[in-house]
């Protein structure tokens, strides 16, 4: 594995190049340009606000600024996760020519897809920062947790991305299954609602390794609290297991890619 990682490092120039290509092509093709990166998060935030409004109506209270901030803060990482899994799932199939014709470490494709999605996240974060300033939600030192949460999310996305990329190369319907999970995953992840709503049963929700990360974003940015550390540790461990397991899985299947695609 050490050798393989060294090879990946050797090919880092290609990794950046493929990520750059993906970003460039995406922004070139769409008339909206950079708005593309904002569109999905904005839609998620809006639907979150609608859901929150319904809660408030049911509870005969009014919609709080903090609620909107929390939904907005959690929507962006969720949008990143969805787009990085979606794009990495298709990354090998869409680069069939390169997979069958030229040798290089193929994990470059899912990783580049995640880098490209990360770029979208950065663009959207700029917009989010302006939005939060306008709300306003204030500052706190807890915000330094955000980069650590983001890193965990990226590692988790990379692990899942490599697994679905390799699996969808062998089985053509994996991409549909992944799409279904991405569509309905939002109901099993605290994006629109708070984990605390579930009281005693919250632990079942937090078993989804994405949940503690998203809840952490809400805590450290919108609620000015520390994330739930025990559960966050669980997420970090899950992310590492998925990352290493995904990499080993991917590398194990890689020699057969050219013949099976």
């Amino acid at each position, binding site marked *: 594995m050490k050798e393989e990682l060294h090879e990946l490092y050797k090919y880092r120039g290609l990794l950046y190049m493929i990520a750059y290509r993906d970003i*460039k092509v995406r922004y070139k093709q769409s008339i909206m340009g950079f708005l593309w990166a904002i569109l999905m998060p904005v839609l998620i935030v809006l639907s979150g606000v609608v859901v929150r409004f319904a809660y408030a109506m049911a509870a005969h209270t009014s919609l709080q600024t903090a609620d909107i901030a929390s939904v907005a803060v959690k929507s962006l990482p969720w949008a990143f996760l969805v787009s990085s899994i979606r794009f990495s799932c298709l990354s090998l199939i869409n680069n069939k020519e390169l997979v069958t*014709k*030229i040798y290089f470490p193929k994990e470059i494709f899912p990783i580049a897809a995640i880098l490209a999605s990360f770029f979208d996240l950065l663009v959207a974060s700029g917009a989010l920062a302006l939005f939060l300033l306008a709300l306003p939600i204030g500052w706190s030192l807890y915000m330094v947790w955000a980069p650590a949460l983001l890193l965990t999310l990226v590692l988790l996305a990379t692990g899942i991305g490599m697994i679905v990329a390799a699996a969808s190369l062998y089985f053509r319907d*994996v991409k549909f299954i992944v799409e279904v999970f991405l569509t309905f995953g939002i109901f099993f992840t605290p994006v629109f609602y708070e984990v605390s709503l579930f009281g005693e049963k919250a632990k079942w929700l937090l078993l989804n390794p994405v949940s503690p990360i998203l809840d952490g974003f809400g805590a450290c940015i919108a609620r000015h609290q520390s994330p739930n550390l025990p559960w966050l540790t669980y997420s970090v461990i899950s992310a590492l297991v998925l990352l290493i397991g995904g990499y080993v899985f991917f590398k194990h299947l890689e020699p057969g890619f050219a013949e099976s695609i």
Partner: protein
Amino acid sequence: MSDVAIRMEHVYKKFRKGEVYNSLRDLLPALTGRMFQQEELSETDRREFWALQDLSFEVKPGECLGIIGHNGAGKSTALKILSRIMKPTKGRMLVNGRLSALIEVTAGFHQDLTGRENIFLNGTILGMSKREIESKLDQMIAFSGLEEFIDTPVKRYSSGMFARLGFSVAAHVDPDVLIVDEVLSVGDHVFQQKCIERMREVLRSGAAVLFVSHNMKTVAEFCHRCLLLDKGKTVNQGPAEKVIATYLQKPSMQPAVDSNTGPVRISSVRVRNETGESIRFESGQKMWVDVELAAHTRCPRMSVTMYLLDQNLVEIFETSTDRLGHGTFDLEPGDTYRCTFELHLNLADGTYFPSVLLYRYDIQTLYDQCEPAATIYVSSDGGARGIVHCFPRVIHQEICRAADARLAGIAKDPASLRRFDSEECA
């Protein structure tokens, strides 16, 4: 640098043919089905086959080795193993230094990026660093001859321009080992000359070249040594001329199954023209080839391939029902299948052999072959030599006499002659 650039030692490659489940929807029922009932897979479908058997060779720096053989001989598999895209089932191989493959030079291109952006992308894919590409950028653009269009998205390029750009990037990787597979068939004459010069340069710089081609003339010109493959086995290895001679003499590959007992066979092939003539044709005439197949067992995904050999038994043209857009077809036991190919004989004087074969590409099996299926003699008006007839004529010719500076115009075409006269008058 060591004294060997490429070494293949007893390399074997096995492919599995038959059922492949490529979706979970197919796999899951198949797994449960197999638990309850033993599914009968036909013996041929379950069998694995060897695409390469015991391939061994060495290429020294500065040497060019040619690999020749009929379709399905294992040439591409050998190159894919060499370029590490596929892993050999057995055996070892060694490549010393940077390997560059001119197999599919446009593989890394993205349609929406400009020529310049694609140079950077493809260059990186081929293993060059960004700095290296920057330093060679002008050279590459000049080599491709696409200066005017370099900032145009490549989706607007013609296929020739596309291939030229691809080749110029690939040709500027300074490799220790260069693999070339039939790319010289793209581009115009001038560009082909450029490519051949570039290959010579690479050879002179001390790199090893591995050349795969169906063009025996180029192979003979380039390669010091040759290797002849047939159905994955090395038939002959040695000096280029000798191996090429063996290849051309060899009648053809034998059908993998006996044609009388096989699952499907070619029952008749008839060549004719509009008037029913079947031997003598004129250049530019239409030729019809009627093919009839008879199936004995179920034969899925069939396609009929029709090809022409010239008098040296070199394949000069090949097509198939599949490639012509008719897809593959399935035959049930007792079925008869008929098809007719229509060809324009844009051929110069000579003897040609229309041939037909029945090949299933997905499992690489040759079912039946008729080579040659017929012998035809093509005659033209005598103005053309070579293989193809381009129906040439001279539409303008002039000689500037140094003595009297008088221009003389001779033109077959009266229209251009008149134009010439009027210019002189003016």
